[in-house]
């Protein structure tokens, strides 16, 4: 007995594309996140340096990691939505409303 999802969604031909760009973006962000961790371990005093409008490297990098996550997410959504439209992926939400 296999369990089907609570809300059925059709086949998604855009899935391989979305997964591919998702994995690339994941590694890209991971590298930036790892950079933050590495600087703290290798050269922690670098984090004290003032960088921009009074913000030190630690605060700037921290804010950047948060804002950049949102920017990447929006880019990902744009690419994924474009591909879904191109491949005519059914959208149950649109069909229901």
């Amino acid at each position, binding site marked *: 007995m296999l369990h089907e999802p609570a809300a059925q969604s059709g086949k998604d031909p855009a899935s391989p594309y979305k997964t591919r760009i998702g994995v690339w973006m*994941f590694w890209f962000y991971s590298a930036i996140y790892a950079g933050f961790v590495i600087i703290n371990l290798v050269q*922690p005093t670098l984090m004290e340096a003032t960088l921009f409008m009074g913000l030190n490297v*630690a605060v700037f990098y921290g804010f950047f990691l948060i804002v950049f996550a949102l920017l990447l997410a929006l880019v990902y959504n744009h690419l994924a939505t474009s591909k879904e439209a191109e491949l005519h992926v059914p959208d149950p939400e649109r069909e229901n409303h």
Partner: protein
Amino acid sequence: MELMPVILFVFFVGLVLGLSFYFARQTKSAAGYFAAGGTIHWGVNGIAFAGDYLSAASFLGICGMIATAGYDGFLYSIGYLAGWIVALFVVAEPMKRLGKYTFTDALDAKFNSKGIQLAAAISTLVVSLFYLIPQMVGAGVLVTPLLGLPHAAGVILVGLIVITIVATAGMTSTTYVQFLKGALLVVFSLVVSVMVCQRGFSTAPDQDGTVPFHRYATVPCTVASDAVTVTDPAFQFAGQVNAGAVTFVKLTKDGKTLFYKLDKDEAGNPELHECQSVVTRTDGSVLINGAPASPENKLRQAGHLAAIRGKTGDEAKTGSVGPFEMMGLFSDPGTRMCIFKEAKFKDGEDAVKAYYGSMATGNRIMRPGVKFKVEGTFTDKLDFISLMLALFLGTSALPHILIRYYTVPSPACARKSTIVAIAAIGFFYVLTLYMGLGAMGNAVVNPADNNMSAPLLARSFGTFLFSMISAIAFATVLGTVSGLIVAGSGAVAHDLMDRFLDMKMDEKKKVWAGKVSAFVIGLIAMVLGIIFQGINVSFLVGLAFAVAASANLPSIIMLLFWEKTTASGIVASIITGVVSSVGIIALSPTMYELYGWDPKTALLPFSNPGLFSIPLSFLALVVVSLMTATPTAAAPAAAEPVKTA
């Protein structure tokens, strides 16, 4: 007890219970109970994600840690938010495609394995319980100042309300409670942050003139052969205690005996600095700052800036500051913060907790290193990496977060709701730095329990804001605990009873089983919330992330990306992840401290298990999958392991 907090509290509780009873009439099926029928709009789901995720740990724990350890608390904000990248790019859409009600469904979708059903359900319960503890602790922390009730009463109150929310309408009521709370939390956190900037900072914060700033006394002394002699005749020497590397001296003045910490001034001369203290005598009576504890005689709220950009006194007053300017002045090497630390020791038969001021410069406190010893030993560095890894990988493995992907109609909606969540959660996490530092600079930190820093900061702006923030913080606990109990009840009723034990329940019985499970898990949560009183809630959630990242994420990733993954491999990975992460935590210095043992004697030197338990879990999956690989055992084609090249 003030009236306005109580009125707002009762209003919020009435609202969430009203919502729950309203939706209860529409919740007849298992899909309705466990997944809100998969009909929630992605925008609502995104904010509900925020409401689910921004728990007591985020609001109370992170702000409290920033208020006492500076930037180190913000590391949690960064790590928690970064984890959503993994959820969005790797997990969201596949989990939606594969799952039904629970994370176990997704893992087991292509195998139908009893082993996976059992192991994943147990993992869900373990992670949910680890996550529940800090939420319940947070509930107790909130209720004490809000309603004047003891910690245990707060925990029981939250437990009963949450059981009612979940047992009435399951995921539907939980979703709307989380939506409401998520939206209010972000909006009012912004209000508090703006008010912090508007008030500005001074070296004698008096909460807009409402609370006089207490200047801690400095007493000159001499030290000869480790014996302290006080030169001021107004003070009488009453004893000396060495607590590790710190020396405390008891001095009596005007009939009151207080503890002072032995320090040195800038020229290297010895001097004594006034501390706060809680002394528990053998007869059970408690003295706070030398006088019997009472509602009027409590520990003084503490924390302030001793110098701002090298200035003190009136010339240090900043007036209103901009958001970047505030970060700049806190990071300045000329800014000095007075942060209170705790020392525990015995004074004869009496148990003493002394809270003493410790100075730190802005450049030091606004980068990692105060709590997490990035410049420490090799083990300290491993502990730091381990924490950051667990925070990054833990989010997308939290069962109560994963089940929210089943409440929307499609994978595209799962993706969009994740992006809304990233926007709301990211914005909130930026605000935690303003609220935490605001608490640090406004002398509103309870030195015995930093978890209340954000609500106490709000109180410094007046009763209304305190009442709103406290009520929202309480709703925060309700929202997150509801989600955790839905996840736990799904694991018991759906994964274990329905699927693993094949109990052949109809829809009505499944819903009933879910409600009974929610009741039992709620009771367990109450007991744990009382036992773990007093520990920083963000730290505990960090551990829950480590268990989730170790137990669940390797299976999810490998199922999606490695076609040789087998059911046995997944079971081995989950068991290895749970046992290794919980085992490392149990033998860590932090837990030794909790047991009341000497942390230096802990069998393992680090407190964060992720760096070891996550790779171990991956390794177990790979080895066992290769050992059990047969043409039929590996993930069938329908599992769609993804090729990325």
